[in-house]
């Protein structure tokens, strides 16, 4: 039997050396492969090291393309960090999983009861089970959260826990996540990538599917709606593009079919929480809170907290359901770990089914003694988990207290640690250090060892809980638990819960049931998203125009002819300078002489991301604004965006020459075209598409105008004002209309024919006329237009612009006056150039106006006087 050969040193894990003293997930005490690992070990034997390496590379590529990043969005200076996903999964037999699950369900239930008590009758305090300090010293204990109504008494709807195995092989709970647990989006994405690489192996190993859990999660959210029960509007509230979990938030929102929103997208009006959309305010029924921290309502929480002013009152009036309930984060503080066994006895009359790691709180005299006695064997942690929000200074209670991110330096001596506890015992807990189990990790074609813990996820479902059969397993090189950035330096593993018998197939693609149909019909576009899409369109066109101009310059500098003899090159270099791609001095003959040769500086300036005019920074803008509308783009389209940036990342400024830049420009142009193609082919013609298109058409119009202006409408010393053929040829090339021109006029280059093709011809997809016509069409299709008797400013201006093009006469535009100038052309281009910003402003005013930053208004003490 094959499985017999795999035991011990003979199989795939033959070379794997496991560390001693800890539980090994794969190899048992006798040195053989554990029974639940045997089927996969067989498969791996079959796949072989080369096969595994190949699959691992595929997985990495896919992860990279999907852009699974932690943080890094929004900040262009930080490279997106990619979650390392180990190809070898973490395996848990179903029988063991069921035991863990039962323990987790008990704990979720208990945590919910604790929350209901602490935000209500506080019997735990009056009965003396929990010291007052644990609640009242908590930096996130907020009076406005007292007695808020919760659906079915449930505060907790999403719960996550970190679990690990002790050296004896038993499961231990390391920590709880009750505020807005993150990681379930990553777990899902990991599974999608893993299942592509191990499709048939997973089937043969009877791996339980994740999809039913996400279905349960969605059903649960739908069931929470108080109003519109059959057609609820549900949103995923994210902390936004700068936040650590933004990728997950957008991924989940898209997967679940809910709208992704940020604070500023929501407003309280007429007693409801409303989403600002292009079509007006849309009432929201359920909010899935994905923001960390305690900052929901600046009106009641004060201190300049970010959030949605007035939302707590809407919750009180039960006009909206927010999950997890505000204040649910209280019980994830480490201090609660010290009391869980006692609370469980007091509230449930039972012991905890899943033991938590032993924890002592310095606020209890006996525990304090224990902590000081065992100071070398415990891990010291701040008692309270304090979530800080960027730009928000907390009120007095929390100030100056250690928060969980406080990292105690390794250099801290025993005495310093004792002093730290003694100076404020209530602020610290001591925690037993648990040696976690080890597993094999695939690294550079070899099996290495790592230590793991797994974040597991539960979702409320009816009266019970639904667990995700699997989770986010993270592996690190330390056997002790770590409290670093959850997705930072550790690698991840997919977690397979292995059933005894074949598993019903289910798809990870969202089922096409009623919910999705209704959410599609409710696709009102948030104004912020429309704004971002419009800018994405603009940046795409700007990148395209810059790349084409740059390419035209470089190809002329590097071809066989002598650049000094080129008629058009100085014109193009001037255009490049006017476009901001190179220093403006290059446009002036005398000044240019003092500068480094252009062929030296041009390459570097094109890929310098710190230069706002560089090609590179145009690409960064596309990526940056693109990531803000990630949930609106198809995976393929997003991969193209990722590829645009990736091309630049392999080039170094020092070793970059013109040929490299030419190559970069070529690739970028192809990527941009691929993106347009995908968008045109796959994006439904909704307002989202229209806004992307409006941005593109406005920018493309502007870029054509600028091209004409920067080449033909500058002071030129052409004989009798006649534009030389090579200049016309270059303009046609940059405007991507050479082919069409040649097919019509062969090599006969004449200005009026060029202008006709580039400006007036509505058949040419690259013409100004075409851009303006499309702009006009898209603007007219926006909501609110048909009903209006009078045209909105933007529609009127766009109509004017297209009409002035239609009425233009190519010959008249092309004729120079006695000074060699072309006033008719100048007037037309100026008109277009001045209309475009006005159109943009009008669109903003009509659809995209955002409320500015929220200011705090607190009565000052000036009114306090007395006349004693």
């Amino acid at each position, binding site marked *: 039997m094959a499985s017999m050969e795999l035991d011990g040193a003979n199989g795939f894990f033959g070379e794997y050396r496991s560390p001693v003293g800890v539980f090994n997930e794969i190899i048992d005490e006798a040195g053989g492969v554990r029974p639940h690992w045997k089927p996969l070990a067989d498969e791996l034997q079959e796949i072989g090291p080369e096969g595994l390496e190949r699959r691992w590379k595929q997985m990495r590529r896919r992860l990279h393309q999907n852009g699974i990043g932690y943080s890094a969005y929004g900040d262009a200076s930080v490279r997106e960090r990619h979650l390392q996903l180990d190809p070898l999964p973490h395996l848990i037999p179903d029988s063991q999983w069921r035991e863990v699950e039962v323990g987790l369900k008990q704990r979720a239930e208990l945590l919910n009861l604790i929350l209901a008590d602490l935000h209500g009758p*506080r019997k735990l*305090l*009056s009965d*003396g089970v929990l010291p*007052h300090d644990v609640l*009242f010293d908590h930096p996130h204990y907020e*009076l*406005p959260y*007292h007695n808020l109504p919760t659906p079915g008494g449930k505060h907790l709807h999403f719960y996550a826990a970190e679990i690990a195995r002790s050296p004896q092989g038993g499961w231990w709970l390391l920590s709880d996540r009750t505020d807005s647990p993150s990681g379930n989006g990553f777990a899902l994405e990991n599974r999608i990538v893993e299942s592509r690489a191990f499709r048939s192996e997973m089937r043969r190993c009877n791996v339980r599917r994740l999809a039913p859990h996400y279905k349960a999660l969605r059903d649960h959210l739908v069931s929470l709606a108080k109003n519109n029960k059959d057609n609820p509007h549900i949103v995923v509230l994210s902390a936004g593009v700068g936040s650590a979990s933004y990728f997950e938030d957008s991924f989940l929102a898209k997967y679940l079919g809910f709208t992704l929103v940020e604070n500023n997208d929501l*407003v*309280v*009006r*007429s*007693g409801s929480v409303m989403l600002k959309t292009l079509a007006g305010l849309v009432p929201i029924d359920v909010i899935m809170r994905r923001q960390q921290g305690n900052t929901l309502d*600046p*009106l*009641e929480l*004060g201190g300049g907290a970010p959030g949605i*002013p*007035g939302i707590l*009152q809407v919750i*009180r*009036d039960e006009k909206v359901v927010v999950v997890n309930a505000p204040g649910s984060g209280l019980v994830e503080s480490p201090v609660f770990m010290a009391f869980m066994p006692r609370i469980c006895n007091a509230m449930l009359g039972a012991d905890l089914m899943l033991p938590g790691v032993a924890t002592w709180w310095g606020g209890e005299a006996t525990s304090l003694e224990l902590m000081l006695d065992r100071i070398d064997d415990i891990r010291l942690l701040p008692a309270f988990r304090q979530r800080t929000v960027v730009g928000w200074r907390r*009120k*007095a*209670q929390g100030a100056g207290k250690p928060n969980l991110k406080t990292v105690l330096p390794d250099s801290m001596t025993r005495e310093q640690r004792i002093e730290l506890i003694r100076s404020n015992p209530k602020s610290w807990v001591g925690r037993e250090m648990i040696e976690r189990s080890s597993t094999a990790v695939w690294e550079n074609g070899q099996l290495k060892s790592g230590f793991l813990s797994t974040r597991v996820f539960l979702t409320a479902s009816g009266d019970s809980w639904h667990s995700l059969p699997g989770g986010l397993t993270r592996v690190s090189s330390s056997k002790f638990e770590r409290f670093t950035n959850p997705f930072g330096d550790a690698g991840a593993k997919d977690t397979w819960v292995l059933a005894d018998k074949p598993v019903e197939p289910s798809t990870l693609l969202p089922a096409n049931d009623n919910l999705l149909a209704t959410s599609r019909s409710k696709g009102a576009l948030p104004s912020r998203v429309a704004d971002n899409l419009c800018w994405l369109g603009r940046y795409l066109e700007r990148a395209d125009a810059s790349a084409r101009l740059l390419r035209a310059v470089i190809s002329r500098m590097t071809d066989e002819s002598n650049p000094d003899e080129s008629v058009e090159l100085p014109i193009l270099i001037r255009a490049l300078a006017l476009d901001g791609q190179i220093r403006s001095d290059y446009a002036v003959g005398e000044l240019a002489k003092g500068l480094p040769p252009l062929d030296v500086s041009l390459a570097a300036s094109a890929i310098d991301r710190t230069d706002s005019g560089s090609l590179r920074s145009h690409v960064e803008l596309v990526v940056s604004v693109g990531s803000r509308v990630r949930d609106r783009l198809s995976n393929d389209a997003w991969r193209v965006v990722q590829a645009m940036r990736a091309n630049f990342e392999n080039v170094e400024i020092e070793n970059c020459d013109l040929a490299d830049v030419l190559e970069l420009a070529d690739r970028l142009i192809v990527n941009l075209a691929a993106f347009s193609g995908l968008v045109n082919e796959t994006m439904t013609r909704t307002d989202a598409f229209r806004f992307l298109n409006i941005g593109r058409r406005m920018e493309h119009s502007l870029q054509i105008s600028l091209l004409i202006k920067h080449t033909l409408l500058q002071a030129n010393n052409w004989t009798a004002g006649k534009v030389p053929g090579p200049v016309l040829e270059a303009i046609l090339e940059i405007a991507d209309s050479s082919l069409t021109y040649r097919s019509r006029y062969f090599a006969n280059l004449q200005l009026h024919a060029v202008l006709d093709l580039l400006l007036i011809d509505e058949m040419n997809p690259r013409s100004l006329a075409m851009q303006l016509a499309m702009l006009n069409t898209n603007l007219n299709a926006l909501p609110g237009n048909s009903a209006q008797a009078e045209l909105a400013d933007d529609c009127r201006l766009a109509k004017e612009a297209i009409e002035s093009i239609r009425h233009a006469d190519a010959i008249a535009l092309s004729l120079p006056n006695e000074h060699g100038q072309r006033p008719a052309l100048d007037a037309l281009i100026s008109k277009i150039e001045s209309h475009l910003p006005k159109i943009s402003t009008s669109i903003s005013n009509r659809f995209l106006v955002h*409320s*500015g*930053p*929220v*200011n*705090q*208004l*607190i*009565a*000052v*003490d*000036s*009114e*306090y*006087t*007395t*006349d*004693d």
Partner: protein
Amino acid sequence: MTNVLYEVTHTTEYNYGDTVPECFNIVRLNPRPIFDQVCQEHRLEINPEPTDYVCREDFFGNLIEQFSVHIPHTSLSVKAVNRIIVTDRDYPDLGSTPAWESVAESIGKDVLAAYLTRPSPHVRHNAAINSYARESFTTGRPVAEATRDLTRRIFEDFEFDSGATTISTPVEEVFKNRSGVCQDFAHFQIACLRSLGLPARYVSGYLRTLPPPGKPRLVGADASHAWVSVFCGDAGWFDFDPTNNVMPGSDHITIGWGRDYSDVCPIQGVFTGGGETVMKVAVDVLPVE
């Protein structure tokens, strides 16, 4: 027993300096119904007209009103008009209240009372504040009698100076400089009481202006006022006004109470837009004959 009927108007005007598209506000100007006062009429006049309005109870049982304005505006005025009958209080013999130590020891199970012995955003204490308090709180002294003595000492030791402090001046500094306004004295006295383990709360309200003999009463000179309330065990909560060295009676009109000023701030809000904001407050406390 004297009954006094007051008409109190409290007007707050904000000039935002620039357009404000929307604002959200919480107002605490609605007198809390308590045993010695009855509010006959309460009216809130808001300009511009609010879009949403709700009145509810807060954590401490105070009445708070919440409203929002969703039309662009550059100024906001909030005028509260109250007609209240206040009855003079009949305080029992202060010397018959329980010893302060026994009050401090007895509150373990009363979570809310225990909560009011804790530091709060504006009230922290230290050893110096505690030893100042201990001069009045000698061993076994009845809690109300000791608090009355503390009230007198604060009145005598501290100088009223409206320019000495702001809302963010910490209690420690008020103590060091021995000067401030009514809310500073209230915060300081609360710090003293809590340093002894006694539950103490901050009371916000108004004070009737007693005109000097022979002179007309000055309209508009009145203001918000603040004093303290201390828990005296079975005898209940007793009020003390350290600014005037009195125990509040029919001259004091209560709006509500909390841990400190931050829980009873008359108006707080958020708004979008705006520029340099200027606020004006006018309070009239008129005894109606």
